[in-house]
């Protein structure tokens, strides 16, 4: 099983590629809404991308209040 750090890195890489933001500008504790410049609809795109990439289901209510990549990675890690 991959480590939490690997999961976090993959999320950052995937988010950077999908929303066309330079990977080096994203940090684990960034607010992803601000860092990626996305709204709630685009957040759903990110959620879908992550579910498809990691082959997990992430109920959207688990994302309520989650706004940084590190916490997001933790939510995914426990479902791997």
């Amino acid at each position, binding site marked *: 099983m991959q480590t939490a750090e690997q999961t976090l890195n993959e999320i950052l890489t995937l988010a950077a590629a999908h929303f066309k933001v330079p990977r080096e500008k994203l940090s684990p504790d960034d607010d992803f809404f601000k860092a990626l410049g996305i709204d709630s*609809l685009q957040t759903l795109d990110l959620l*879908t991308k992550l579910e498809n990439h990691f082959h997990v289901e992430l109920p959207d209510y688990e994302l309520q209040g989650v706004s940084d990549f590190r916490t997001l990675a933790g939510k995914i890690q426990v479902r791997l």
Partner: protein
Amino acid sequence: MKDFKGQAISWELKNGVIELLLHRAPCNELGSLSLNELEQFAAALDVAEKDAHSLIVHSELKSGFCAGADLRELYERSEQMEKSRAALGVREFLERIHRVLNRIDASPLTTIAAVHGVTFGGGFELALVCDLIFADKLARFAFPELRLGLIPGFGGIPRLKRDLGNGVVRDLLLTGRSFNATKAQQIGLVSQVVGEGEALRAARATAAQMGKFDRHTAAVAKQFIKPIPHDELRHEIDIFCELFARPAVRAGLKKFVESTDAQPYLP
């Protein structure tokens, strides 16, 4: 009428395929404008069906297929009216949109919803009237109505029950969570999952194939396998209207409309 260009929807009949396009920003919210034009579309179907074999419903907006009912309009109109008049207005709206959706559901054409992005609430219900749903990888489906103190009101539950197991219906309805396209295909809701931006192309390819089949046989087969749950649909309107009269709904709508939450679409 072979083509129409409206403010919320447009349609065109070409080579036996009617394409119904949704294009009302931000995400094809279904309000009175959309309903007026959808009623025109339903009336036009009577003529257009004679020259067509398939119907494709899709959205040209990047945000998605359809985010559902126009909650802002629903809230603002309700606020301007007395409670009893608002309730009557909601019932009338629901009965009108049910007539349109039942008409599409019962069409002898083979109907395909080509969806991407947000396919929530009334948008999900619009897709469910179609015979087939093709989804791109980023499509998501949800019934978030319970967060407003409501149930889906455009025929969603009876149609979902028609197509899927009751356990899945309960999951979607009671949790309000959204399913991605892969999950939706696993449970039998989506026929084909395609790459990003490819749903319309796949729908057109399938519609072209449908054009090779005998129309009468296809229509008879559809009528046999896809009954319209009229009693449950009427019951759904009654339940929706009963719930709509409760104060919790106005509070829920107000909260949604005034929300500055970064994730208002998340249940």
